[in-house]
């Protein structure tokens, strides 16, 4: 597919917008449909589109397998660690977001944003890892 001019140019034009749309969906999860899971899938879709048009090797140069494998647990770590400051500072129980702000609304907003960031990282790397695992199979 990398020899088709329209696909190549079109993909290169669209990829930045797809990647910007993901944080948009993430931050607007408070006010409309959205959130971490959807944003993670959109990021993964951008990488998968690149892999489909330019080939798996080109995609693996940008997002190497080892980096993706390491990012998978990092997202879970961010999520779980976001719940810990309340325990460590002694102010509350696990996932008590009161430590992040001065009043209830802002504290919870910050807490949800941090937690959803962890979700983005894990979901994007999981989708990409699944794509790599399946796409690699037929090549031997």
């Amino acid at each position, binding site marked *: 597919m990398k020899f088709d001019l329209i696909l190549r140019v079109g993909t290169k034009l669209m990829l930045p917008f797809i990647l910007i749309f993901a944080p948009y969906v993430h931050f607007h999860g408070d006010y409309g449909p959205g959130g971490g899971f959807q944003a993670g899938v959109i990021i993964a879709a951008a990488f998968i589109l690149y892999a489909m048009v330019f080939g798996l090797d080109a995609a693996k140069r940008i997002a190497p397998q080892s980096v993706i494998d*390491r990012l*998978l*647990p*990092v997202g*879970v*770590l961010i999520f*779980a660690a976001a*719940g810990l400051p309340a*325990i460590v500072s*002694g102010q*509350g*129980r*696990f*996932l*008590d*977001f*009161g430590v992040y702000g001065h009043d209830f609304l802002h504290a919870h907003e910050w807490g949800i944003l941090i937690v959803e960031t962890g979700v983005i990282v894990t979901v994007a790397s999981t989708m990409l890892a699944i794509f790599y695992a399946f796409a690699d199979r037929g090549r031997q």
Partner: protein
Amino acid sequence: MSSLHEHLPILQILVPLFGAVFAALTRSGVVAWGIAAIASAIAPFISAGLLLHIIDTGQPISYVMGAWAAPWGIEYRVDLLNAFILLLISLIGLVSIPYARKSVAAEIDPHKQPWFYTMYLLCLAGLLGIVITGDAFNAFVFLEISSLATYTLIALGRHRRALLSAYQYLIMGTIGATFYIIGVGLLYVATGTLNFTDLAARLGPAMQTYPEPILAALAFMTVGISLKLALFPLHVWLPNAYAYAPSFATSFLAGTATKAAIYLLIRIHFSVFGTHIVLKTVPIEEVILLLSLAAMFIASFAAIFEANAKRMLAYSSVAQIGYITLGIALANKMGLAGSLVHVFNHAIMKTALFFALGAMVYRTGMAGMTGLSGIGRKMPITTAAFVIAGLGLIGVPGTAGFISKWYLAIGAIDHGWTWLVFLIVLSSLLAVIYVGRFIEIAYFREPSAELASAREPPTSMLAPLITLAAATIYLGFDTRLTGGVAMRIAEYLLGGT
């Protein structure tokens, strides 16, 4: 230190969860084993701390997360029943981990070993989560976490049939979990809450206005959980899954996975619905009684005719689960206590049996009974431990199995069904046949040619095996932990409703 004590319930889940995350970040099997060992070693201390706190104060521990009070928020509620099963699961994890080092190194590819330990820790976190949570939907989430980890653990077995067994278990397990979630949905529509204690309070009045959805919910949840605990005839996934999984996975799962589902069944039937709904409206207890008897006999028969030792032990597991659900069906104090004691004892005995068999596979590479002829001469300590745990399965006085069957028999007499005692003894005789078959093959035949290089397994595998075999005998005499606590739990579950 008091602040740490306050957060024990969430630490019970966080320790294996963080362990899983760190194990996934490593690339070496030994480091991943080390992380799994640390997490598995800390977990029983947390469970013991919770159990001692509850025994001391006599009050359940309630831990509310995320600054939303129950019943709107998710609550971890630990009472005597929870703490008992938590201690069991974390102890099995602790005992299994030294065994894992050599066993996993021999059976799993080196670059997959970190992921194997990640899955093991996620399974441990999921099982502990099912037991500790006080929210019905949270139980589903942890159920699926542990199940997905289990499918992966099983699929990493060496034989290609492991993949097929994992797929079959995936289909059946997901249907079971979805049935459970349908039941929870019907309960939510009828009562408006998901918290176990709140549901228990609201179900009484709700039964007057909406009896049909609540009974349908009871049926869906029972069927869904029965699929997970392998109650006959929903046990079809278990023999294949236990036979073809890696030895460490089978040993760990045999002692823990079905026990967490049994906890959920007991919690739903006795705490949430309560005996006045469960016993008086639909004949659920009679149905479970019939299925338990079917499990006890048919599965024991299937075990007698099995050629593969692992499948024989798997069918034996289905039969022993029949004993446990028999106690639940009796629904009186001694029957329920017998169930709980058998949950503990069976976990210890079955894990010991699978340890012994896994050690034999480690040394000889064979699990077929004919291939293991004469193994008693070559691996005497391992086979002796197998025999002790097997005697426990049969229920020989002096072993832990006798205690649980004794309680079940007294429960049957209390209920007025004396013929049930006769059936319990009869099925124990069937256990004599299949355990005796293995003993005869192991001791009274000449070692076959393939066993020339067999000798005792390494100490890291032998020590857990001997510990569990010794525990089988010890728990046959000192029943303060198992019997005493089980009777208190049964009183609390039956009296509180």
